[in-house]
Structure formats: structure tokens, C-alpha cells
């Protein structure tokens, strides 16, 4: 005799325990500390902060630990935490020309004021497994060049490539909006279409790196050809300033590490605009170059309509990109298929049986006699 399924609660409680065990692994192996994750899995921490929209390496590391290394799950944890935080104010716009740079490269100019600074990058590593790491070896030497640090701390040393091009009038300019109005906050209000560029950039900044990478890649393979050049990628720390209402002037509240990408794209010109270069913009917390580059390509592709280009590829369609970029939304909805669907499935079962029994059934469904149906 069938007994209605019971015990869901017990099952959930037990699954918590199993999950804890899985996360901890073999207890004879020392437990990971948050500091270790923060220090030794920096790029994972940076991605979780970027897509989790919270600059807090410690909490990001905690989320990674709790999520057993699943970064999308860690991003979810951080976002859920963020949702309940009060909004204290908006910072002043970041001045990335005043960044203290750790890395700065331009693919458009061989040399430029401030120079090319390779910095820490996997770009020119040879991707051979380093078996010395198996033996937990420490790096053989560290760089501590006082000249390098002096350069880094000379704030006005490295103007942005975009600003250099700007002097010739060859690249589009964006006028800062008057009175610096409070930007639309897509974490407080739902996105409506058409979405303005600042809203789109917010969405892309929080968007899943894998999704943006694929979208950006598609623009390079003929689905919205945007002829991009890396004007500049810069990695470093930048000051955050806030004007408290009671003071009325800006005070610095600290530095954050960011990656900024300015992509330069050809533009043939239109009836109103002369031929010039246009821009795509990417910004991410920490060291997140792949993300910042993908973001800048997609940002530019999404400007197609504004620039009078033909909109025919997914990467150029704001509703397509912005509605599917968020890993929480995508992961949640894809994985909700694990939830029970007995009722809907029962309804579909009835329907399919009815269709097979029906005289009007289509040839594709007509493979055998209807003696299987339940009636």
C-alpha cells in the first residue's frame, strides 16, 4: 500500500550534516582558514567580490569556504548577505587616472606616458604544471625594488590612454551628467527596458564571468563585429571618497583594488558623427581582467542601437544580455527543475495520453496503437 511521502524535514536536516562533512573533507587534514583563502586564492576572492557586489575580501573568502569552493554559490551567499545591508550613501565617482598601478598595459601604443607595466599576470607563463608546488615550496625570491614603488606612488604618472586620444578628438567623449545625480540602483529597483548605459554597466559588472566571456567571444566571431582594441587595462588601487551630508566636503574612506578596461572600437561615422573611435568599458573589483575585458566588449556591443548600427546578434540585444547575465537568476531557475513538478507532470501525462488517443493525432506521434493509455 502506498504511503504518502513524509520525512522531508528530516531529510533536509540530515543533508545539512552531510554537506558539512563534505565541505570539511578528511578531518585529519588541517582545516582551511579564511586568511589562507584570502591570501592564496586571491583571484577566486576577487571574482566573488565582483559578482557578489561587495568589496570585502574576508567575507568573500568566508563565502568560498562555506560554498566548498563553488564560486557561483559563494557569490549567492555574498549577495544574500548584501541584500539586507543599509545604504549609507553614494561615493564620489572613482578617478582611475589617479590609481596606484600594479599593472598597466595598452595594446594600441607601443610606449606611452607611464609606460607599460606587466605586473603580476599569467599571460606569459608557460602553462606547465609546476610540480614544485606539490611539495609546498615557497617562491625562491621576492621583488622589492624601491624604484618601482616610487613610480607606483607617483599619482599623476600614468594618464589614461583614452584621455591621450581625447586630446586629438579622435575618440568619443562622454559629458559627465550635471549635478552628479544618484545613479539608478538595480539592486533596489527592477531593470526596465530600454535600460540606460549606467544600468547596463551595473548589470554587466555583476554578471556571470562565463556568460559575459561567451557573449564577448561571439562578437569576435561575426555575431556583432566590433573591431576592438585594448586601449588600456589597468590594475591597482584607487581611493574611495564620500561626501558626508554633515560635512559637505569629500573625505577619503579607503582604497580598493580594481581592474579597469577601456576597449577602443572602430566607428565609421554617421550622419551626425564623424568617423572616430568609440569605447567599451569594463570595471571589476580586484584582479579580474578576463571579466573586465569581456564586460567592455559586451558594453560596446550593447551600444549598437545608440550608434545606429544594425542590431542582429544576441550580444547587441539588451533584453537578451541583461536578462540572462546574472548567475543567481540563471542558476536558480535552471536548478529549480530539481524541485518536485508532480502536478505539472501529471497534467502533461494526461495530455500526452489524450493526444495519442485522439483521432487528430499527428503522424509524428503516431507510432503505435493506443493500447498503452491509461483509460
Amino acid at each position, binding site marked *: 500500500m*502506498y504511503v*504518502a*511521502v*513524509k*520525512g*522531508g*524535514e*528530516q*531529510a*533536509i*536536516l*540530515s543533508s*545539512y*550534516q552531510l554537506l*558539512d562533512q563534505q565541505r570539511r573533507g578528511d578531518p585529519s587534514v588541517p582545516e582551511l582558514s579564511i586568511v589562507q583563502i584570502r591570501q592564496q586564492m586571491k583571484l577566486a576572492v576577487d571574482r566573488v567580490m565582483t559578482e557578489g557586489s561587495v568589496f570585502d575580501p574576508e567575507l568573500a573568502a568566508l563565502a568560498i569556504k562555506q560554498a566548498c569552493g563553488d564560486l557561483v554559490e559563494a557569490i*549567492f551567499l555574498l*549577495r*544574500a548577505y*548584501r*541584500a*539586507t545591508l543599509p545604504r549609507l550613501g553614494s561615493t564620489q565617482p572613482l578617478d582611475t587616472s589617479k590609481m596606484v598601478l600594479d599593472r598597466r598595459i595598452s595594446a594600441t601604443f607601443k610606449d606611452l606616458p607611464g609606460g607599460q607595466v606587466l605586473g603580476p599576470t599569467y599571460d606569459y607563463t608557460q602553462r606547465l604544471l609546476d610540480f614544485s608546488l606539490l611539495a609546498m615550496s615557497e617562491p625562491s625570491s621576492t621583488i622589492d625594488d624601491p624604484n618601482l614603488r616610487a613610480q607606483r606612488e607617483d599619482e599623476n604618472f600614468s594618464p589614461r590612454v583614452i584621455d591621450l586620444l581625447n586630446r586629438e578628438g579622435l575618440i568619443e567623449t562622454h559629458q559627465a551628467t550635471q549635478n552628479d545625480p544618484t545613479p539608478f540602483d538595480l*539592486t*533596489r*529597483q*527592477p*531593470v*526596465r*527596458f*530600454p535600460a540606460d548605459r549606467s544600468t547596463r554597466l551595473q548589470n554587466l559588472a555583476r554578471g556571470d564571468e562565463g556568460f559575459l566571456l561567451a557573449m564577448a567571444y561571439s562578437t569576435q566571431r561575426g555575431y556583432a563585429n566590433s573591431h576592438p582594441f585594448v586601449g588600456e587595462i589597468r590594475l591597482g588601487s584607487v581611493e574611495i571618497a564620500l561626501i558626508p551630508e554633515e560635512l559637505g566636503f569629500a573625505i577619503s574612506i579607503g582604497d580598493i583594488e580594481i581592474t579597469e578596461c577601456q576597449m577602443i572600437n572602430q566607428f565609421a561615422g554617421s550622419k551626425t558623427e564623424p568617423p572616430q573611435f568609440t569605447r567599451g568599458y569594463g570595471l571589476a573589483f580586484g584582479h579580474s581582467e578576463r571579466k573586465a575585458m569581456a564586460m567592455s566588449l559586451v558594453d560596446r556591443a550593447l551600444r549598437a542601437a545608440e550608434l545606429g548600427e544594425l542590431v542582429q546578434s544576441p550580444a547587441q540585444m539588451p*533584453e537578451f544580455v541583461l*536578462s540572462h547575465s546574472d548567475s*543567481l*537568476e540563471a*542558476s*536558480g*531557475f*535552471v*536548478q*529549480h527543475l530539481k*524541485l*518536485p*513538478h*508532480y*502536478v*505539472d507532470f*501529471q*497534467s*502533461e*501525462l*494526461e*495530455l500526452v495520453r*489524450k*493526444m495519442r488517443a*485522439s*483521432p*487528430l*493525432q*499527428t503522424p509524428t506521434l503516431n507510432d503505435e496503437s493506443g493500447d498503452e493509455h*491509461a*483509460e
Partner: protein
Amino acid sequence: MLNKSKTSTPLEKLVDSHENQAVDQHFNFAYLDERTKRMIRRAILKAVAIPGYQVPFGSREMPLPYGWGTGGIQVTASVIGPSDVLKVIDQGSDDTVNAVNIRRFFQRTTNVEITTQTQAATLIQTRHRIPEMALTEDQIIIYQVPVPEPMQRLEPRERETRSLHGLAEYGLMHVKLYEDIARYGHIATTYDYPVLVNHRYVMAPSPIPKFDNPKMHMNPALQLFGAGREKRIYAVPPYTAVESLGFEDYPFEIQRWDAPCELCGSRDSFLDEVITNDQGGRIFVCSDSDYCESQQNDAESSSGSTTPSGLKHD
């Protein structure tokens, strides 16, 4: 009669210590902060004022995943008060894992009374079913909605569907139903069957079986719909006309079963098919577990009569 669980099993105690009960004190009543609740209540009021219209709202990232009931949870969290009695069902049952999980969430964050009995509840959060027992004016039913836009599968662009709603231009939907008839001889939509609310807006009733659609019509309870991922709230106020779309010659009709419920003998409730062995054996049982239980109890108390005393709902 209420299943309020004040005593914890040893396992629960363990899990509570694991989850660190102090954490619960870090959150406001029903988790959301009061400003967020107010924002959601405003959206609900607008939704009630324009029955069937999808009101955009600033959906928050909840501690449960999008697609798992975050819209319903946010609506429940903004209307729930300490004196409410909450029932949470999924597929008609109080004991499916996601219903259990959502109920636990509200137990942890509100400590309100919990029930599995439809008539004892003041708030019912549901996924995919409307209880068989008729609702009353004192109740609010909150639907979890995955896709609030009834035309999304026909026209994925929100800008387009928004203007179709604005113009009350629902030809697209009627053509879809007509094509079903032309192809299959009947309308081939079995759940999330589109309805016209208050003679104005076509609305997705959420993926309830079309069997449940007639229960929405002129229902005395307030019906609220929350779609967290899609950031929309809509409503059907009490005693509002809800008409399932159809044609004069091919009217809307609901599913019927040839067999009664194996457990309670009901012929009036939505039945789930349960496979009992690998030789094709199957039985049908009520999807609404509380209804089924009360039918069984009634049958026992009324001198062994097996005739169900279920409510008619047409």
C-alpha cells in the same frame, strides 16, 4: 490541532546549534527590513488596485535561490504579522522538501504559528496548487510564480509584451490556443493556463494545473502572486472575475480522472499518479495532502462510510 513545533528533535537541536541560533537575532521579523517590506506592500497595493497587472518591484536576493519561491517568500514576508498562522505547500503537499524549507525559514525568522490545515491558516504560500478546501475572506493565498508573463514563450521581449498588455491586444494568445485546436483537436495547455482577470488583463495563474483555475474565479480570499527572479508582483482581489481563456465551440475544460483517490476515495480532487512497482502498476492519490487526510478522517468518523464529503469546485 495546530502542528506548531515547539519541541525539537535531537537532530533539530544539533542543526540549530550548527546554524547558530544567534544568527536569527541578526535579522528583522520575517527577514526583510521594514523599508523593503513597505516597498513590497506598495507594489501589492498597486497590484490589488489593477487586478492582473504585473507590477515591477525591487526584488531582493533572498537566502533561498531565485526560482525556488523567492517571490512568494518576499510577498509573505511583507504581509505576515506575529498573529498569522502560516501554511506552506508545494505540489499540494506540506511535506515536500521545498515547502518544508520555506516553512522552516519563516519559523526561524518569525516564530509564527504553523499549520498544515487549510482552514486554520491565515496565510497560505503555495507552489503549483490551490488547496481543495474553499478559501475564506480571512485568508490570503500567496502563489510562487516562475514566469509572470503569460506571453513570454510567444514573445520573449518584455518591451513588446508590455505594450500588448497596455493595448489589451491578446490575439497572440488566442492564436496559440487556436493552433492547438487545429493541430491536436483540443487546447494543449494543461498548467499555467492563461486567464483573463477582471475582464481586462491576461494573467499567468502560475503553474497550477488548469484543474485549479475555476477556484480563482470570485474567490473570497485575496490572491497575491510573487515572481522574485522576474521582479514582478500581481494580484487578484477577493470576488474578482477570473476567466480561463477558451472559445465558444472549444470551451475551457478541466482534467477528470476515471479513478478515485486510492487513500480517501475522493473523486473531486486533483490526483497525482504514483508508480507502485516496475510492472506498470500505479495508483492515483490526492495531490492536496491535507485534504486527503481530512477526507480519510471524515470517512473514519462517519461510521466507516467511504463516500467522500469533498467540496465541489466548479
